[in-house]
């Protein structure tokens, strides 16, 4: 494997990890506030659909992005209603949201475009362009650093850079701001926040709104950045891989970056080498595809560094008498 191939695989990994990273951070906000979210998949899917539809109709990827965020937020609101306001089962609500997105996107897509759930291909300004960073062309020929800068770091869509910036931003918000302190507190012990005179409900809604926003970015990126348009079930389990990454990262922003990179890399390798020949054994792509899930189960089993979720996660808050 030569250097150029490595760069290509890493470049592909960066593209593939972006939706995972955004969705993973989305889940991080929600779960840190004590609201479990297995509906990341559905929100991403819905966002991908609304983003692609509006981008196609208006010819603007940016309007598509807004629509994507709106679509995802609408489902976040449903999740908030059931898990915060009506204190229902958060897991069941997440399951429902996944199906709702999976059904609605095809139903509406078929009605609007008549392509069996697909949207027409996006062209031109309907997609986010790849951004060439300054001096990318000039530095291309410098050995080692040149390709890394020009091929790996430069040449992604804006949303890729946004996703990477979200990592330090999330860390900063979580650990350096008042909002972050309260958010973490409400996920650990909502009564502490409530007795301090801060509304548990408002905090949790804020968290799931951010979750909806980030899932919206993730979905929009899938449909208008990574691909050119929406295809039925295009998230293909990415929401669950993001969830896996979140557990893998033990609900920490920097670790989320690492986990999603690892999972993105696995996908990139599986795409490039359907049957990875390691000399002694040949690893089928199915194994590479399943690896994120297998790794997560191992982490969950607690044999390698136990993952402890936020203490109040999954429990609706009820004031005790």
């Amino acid at each position: 494997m030569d250097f150029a191939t490595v760069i290509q695989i890493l470049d592909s990994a960066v593209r593939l990890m972006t939706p995972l990273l955004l969705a993973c951070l989305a889940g991080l906000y929600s779960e840190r506030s004590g609201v479990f979210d297995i509906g990341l998949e559905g929100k991403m899917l819905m966002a991908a659909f609304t983003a692609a539809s509006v981008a196609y109709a208006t010819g603007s990827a940016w309007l598509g992005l807004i629509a994507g965020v709106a679509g995802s937020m609408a489902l976040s609101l449903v999740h908030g209603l059931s898990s915060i306001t009506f204190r229902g089962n958060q897991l069941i609500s997440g399951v429902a949201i996944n199906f709702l997105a999976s059904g609605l996107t095809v139903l509406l897509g078929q009605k609007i475009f008549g392509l069996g759930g697909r949207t027409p291909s996006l062209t031109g300004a309907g997609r986010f362009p790849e951004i060439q960073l300054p001096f990318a062309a000039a530095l291309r020929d410098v050995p080692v650093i040149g390709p890394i800068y020009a091929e790996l770091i430069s040449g992604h869509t804006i949303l890729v850079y946004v996703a990477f910036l979200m990592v330090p931003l999330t860390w900063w918000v979580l650990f350096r701001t008042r909002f972050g302190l309260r958010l973490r507190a409400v996920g650990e012990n909502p009564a502490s926040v409530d007795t301090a005179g801060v509304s548990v409900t408002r905090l949790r809604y804020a968290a799931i709104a951010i979750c909806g926003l980030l899932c919206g970015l993730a979905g929009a990126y899938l449909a208008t950045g990574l691909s050119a348009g929406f295809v039925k079930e295009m998230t293909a389990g990415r929401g669950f891989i993001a969830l896996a990454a979140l557990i893998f990262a033990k609900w920490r922003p920097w670790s989320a970056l690492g986990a999603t990179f690892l999972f993105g890399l696995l996908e990139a390798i599986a795409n490039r080498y359907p049957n990875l020949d390691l000399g002694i054994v040949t690893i089928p792509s199915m194994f590479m595809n399943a690896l994120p899930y297998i790794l997560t189960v191992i982490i969950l089993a607690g044999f390698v560094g136990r993952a402890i979720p936020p203490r109040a996660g999954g429990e609706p808050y009820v004031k005790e008498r």
Partner: protein
Amino acid sequence: MTAGGDTAEGRPETAAPAAIELRGISKAFGPVQANKDIDLRVPKGSIHGIIGENGAGKSTLMSILYGFYKPDAGEILVNGQPLTIADSQSAIRAGIGMVFQHFKLVQNFTVLENVILGVEDGRLLRPSLAKARGVLKQLAAEYGLNVDPDETIEELSVGHQQRVEILKALYRQADILILDEPTGVLTPAEADHLFRILRGLKAEGKTIILITHKLREIMEITDNVSVMRRGEMVASVRTAETSAEQLAELMVGRKVLLNVAKAPARPGAPVLEVRELKMVDDEGVERLRGIGFDIRAGEILGIAGVSGNGQTQLLEILGGYPEKGSTLSGAIRLNGRDLPLSGGGCNAAERRRQGIGHIPEDRQVEGLIMDFTAWENVAFGYHHAPEYNRGWLMDNAAIRDDAEGKMERFDVRPRDAALAARNFSGGNQQKIVVAREIERNPDLLLIGQPTRGVDIGAIEFIHKRIVELRDAGKAVLLVSVELDEIMSLADRILVMFDGRIMGERLPHQATTGDLGCLMAGVDPATTAPEDAIPPAHKHVEELPGESA
């Protein structure tokens, strides 16, 4: 607006202006009237006790004061000003601070982070943390409230966690501090330290409301005391002008029968022998440090002690279900036969077959399945019994018949076996448990807190049944935090402190003071008390200079 003092009705404490005044507060939860037309006046700069049994409505009243519930009727005046306390935020603004029985702390946050939570200055944390650090240092110096501001809560002892709660209130500039059963989890020494802090706060002009059901504390520290009974405020008096006996009578509404009528015990052969029983929990904390005792047939052995000193672990181990991940050593013998401490033979079903009955400390979580019907609960734990089964299937008709009989004999009301357990009152729920366990006629009955949250009538009934079982030649182990209950029921008393037995007394020889010392880990018989205090560990607070 009238000032608080003008409307007071000639109560003993009218001299000082009122920090808090409640007028006609009522609150109902569905059909349950938790607070009925409550009047209360708390003079500024005083320590005011509110006393009452479990379920008398004390906590509800304080929750109203802290904005957790809206009263159905009535008026709240703070410093003479009428106030609507819609939420905790407005209570905090009015200068009210609350220390809950169950602390509202974030376990993996530092002390500092917990203190600023909800009252941060600005959107960034750094300045708030710096400011709080300074204030905490000052408060520590002023009131002896020393806690390391950078320690996480989970690393602190219970006593220190409570200090963090007090610091939280003071940091919010509370002038009125409400403490809900603050000593329930403390050793007597820790409690004394708390009281010193409270006196210091009072000296600084703070008003303190102390909710408790412990008479000793009321007599020791309060200036005035109000008594609640079944949702009503039945009296408000100066502490100096009353006595513990009088308060107790007000609390329960009649003379308390301090002694259950019972014949002297005629103990037979030992039924249970416990030897050198040690238990280390999954966090490595030694919960039992070598316990040994016997219980003979026809006797009630009482175990007194502040809760959390190993009694729960002892009951669970004897009942066959030691805490997950704990390691045990020592020996337990029932009727001369060794019982396994771990492995397949160590489970509650096996213990029941061996003749051990168990009335658990928490009937709602352990003793009953609240969603099950009364008759299903009557089989709980005995669902493998042959009379409840026919071949592969359970014989529901037989269980039902049996349940109806038991409910009849134990006067459980309403007498409807098909009703879910959660629809019975506390006393009737407990009667179902007691009926189930006692009618099995066990050789040894384990009892934890038999009358917690149970009304007076049911208490008497349950006590009588326990004595009857003893008189039938059975052994009874009674664990209770209610000293009165231990003193009146037990034939012998052991006192547990920090996982060991501090001493043994006979009820007619023991005094509350004597037992209280033992409960605090001090043996009055030994001359060097510091020897009696075990080496400090994670869960026991070090109190430098206090044991001497």
